[in-house]
């Protein structure tokens, strides 16, 4: 691809601790996420998946290498710039507890905009657009405790991509959901990426990772393999014929 990626991890390492006790959570990872692309990261626990996501979201700083979000080097940012980055450029979707319980769905989605200084009314209007995009505009006034897990995750996706945010970082977003609901949530995530967002999805479920354009396998902080090639029609026809 020739366009510059929304997210670029360039030879990124992250070491926790010093000397003998040092643990290398990530070791020279290079990864790109472009607009319209959903990239899944698979790996067993302890492989560095969460570290990768935290680095991408500016919640953690790399020991070496560069993390670049929409052209800006996250490593060079002040705390205030990092906060602004999280308000304006990217959003997180976690496995659980995604929404602030005292706010309605719309208010939750509007939160980053409000934090960024937008007037409440305008922020809520934009939030409604974003809820519309994930197909639950009618739940705008519900509180999280009155929504199903799948609906809450949709709200979280809506919030992650509200306004000008273009990068969603999802950490096991289907972990707390049954398989049907989980698939629906991934479908939404996939649709938002098809609509131009970039997505980085951390999961240990192959069936969910398969929704991504590319799947990256992480082992002990190293990318060991990638499904980088476009799908071939033959393999599909073959497997279909085999049934």
């Amino acid at each position, binding site marked *: 691809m020739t366009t510059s990626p929304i997210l670029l991890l360039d030879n990124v390492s992250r*070491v926790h601790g010093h000397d003998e006790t*040092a643990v*290398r959570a990530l*070791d020279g990872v290079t990864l790109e996420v472009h607009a319209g692309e959903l990239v899944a990261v*698979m790996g*067993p626990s302890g492989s560095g998946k969460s570290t990768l996501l935290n680095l991408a979201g500016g919640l953690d700083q790399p020991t070496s290498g560069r993390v670049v979000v929409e052209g800006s080097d996250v490593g060079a940012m002040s705390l205030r710039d990092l906060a602004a980055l999280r308000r304006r450029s990217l959003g997180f979707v976690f496995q659980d507890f995604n929404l602030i319980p005292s706010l309605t769905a719309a208010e939750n989605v509007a939160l980053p905009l409000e934090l960024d200084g937008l007037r409440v009314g305008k922020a809520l209007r934009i939030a409604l657009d974003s809820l519309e995009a994930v197909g639950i505009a009618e739940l705008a006034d519900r509180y999280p405790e009155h929504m199903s897990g799948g609906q809450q995750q949709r709200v979280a996706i809506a919030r992650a991509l509200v306004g000008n945010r273009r990068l969603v970082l999802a950490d096991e977003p289907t972990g707390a959901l049954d398989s049907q609901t989980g698939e629906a949530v991934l*479908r939404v995530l*996939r649709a938002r990426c098809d609509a131009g967002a970039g997505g980085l999805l951390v999961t240990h*479920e*192959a*069936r969910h*990772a*398969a*929704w*991504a*354009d590319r*799947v990256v*396998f992480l*082992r*002990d902080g190293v990318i*060991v*393999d*990638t*499904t980088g*090639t476009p*799908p*071939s029609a*033959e*393999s*599909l026809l*073959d*497997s*279909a014929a*085999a*049934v």
Partner: protein
Amino acid sequence: MSIRRGLLALLAQEPMYGAQLRSEFESRTGGTWPLNVGQVYTTLARLERDGLVEGAGGADAEGRIAYRLTGQGRAEVQRWWAAPVDRGDTPRDERVIKLALAVTVPGVDIQRLVQTQRTATLRHLQDLTKLKRVTSDAAEQHTPDGRGPGQRNELAWLLVLDNLVYAAEAEIRWLDHVETRLARESTRAPKTPHRDTATSQTDRSPSQTDRSAKRASR
């Protein structure tokens, strides 16, 4: 196809004669793939013809000839370990057989092998998912509200796809399991339940211990 490769893999360990090859093959794959001696000798003859194996010396007292790999044969075995098993044209068991052999044969990077297979399967899973998306999108477009025959067909197709999806997922899970299982074995003592594979296990174990040591020292 895979008998051929399986025999090659066995010969990579040490030179063997036909009957020996047959019993090794069966014991290592748990008898899931019984061979007859005729099959073994025909295969060996073809392998010799293709220049992959050669006789190791003359016949012994009982008239048996041991075969060993040629350089070309060795390369062929390496290629096989490195490549994922193609889904299209082989019975599914080949993946299992290959892994079972890989565990017992020295010098195979089994982690690499598992990962290669996993990547291939996941790629397949991705394709299935993509097909599913296309199909369900199409279903929604064609008959937004009705239950036409077209939608029925699409539903059937989706269920078939789901079957494939779950099969592929199961395979990946199995591969994950193999990997963790092997990792656990390798951290134990180099003792092994296999009678003939003590050497291969000891071969592999140090290299894995090396790796973890390297990891820790970083």
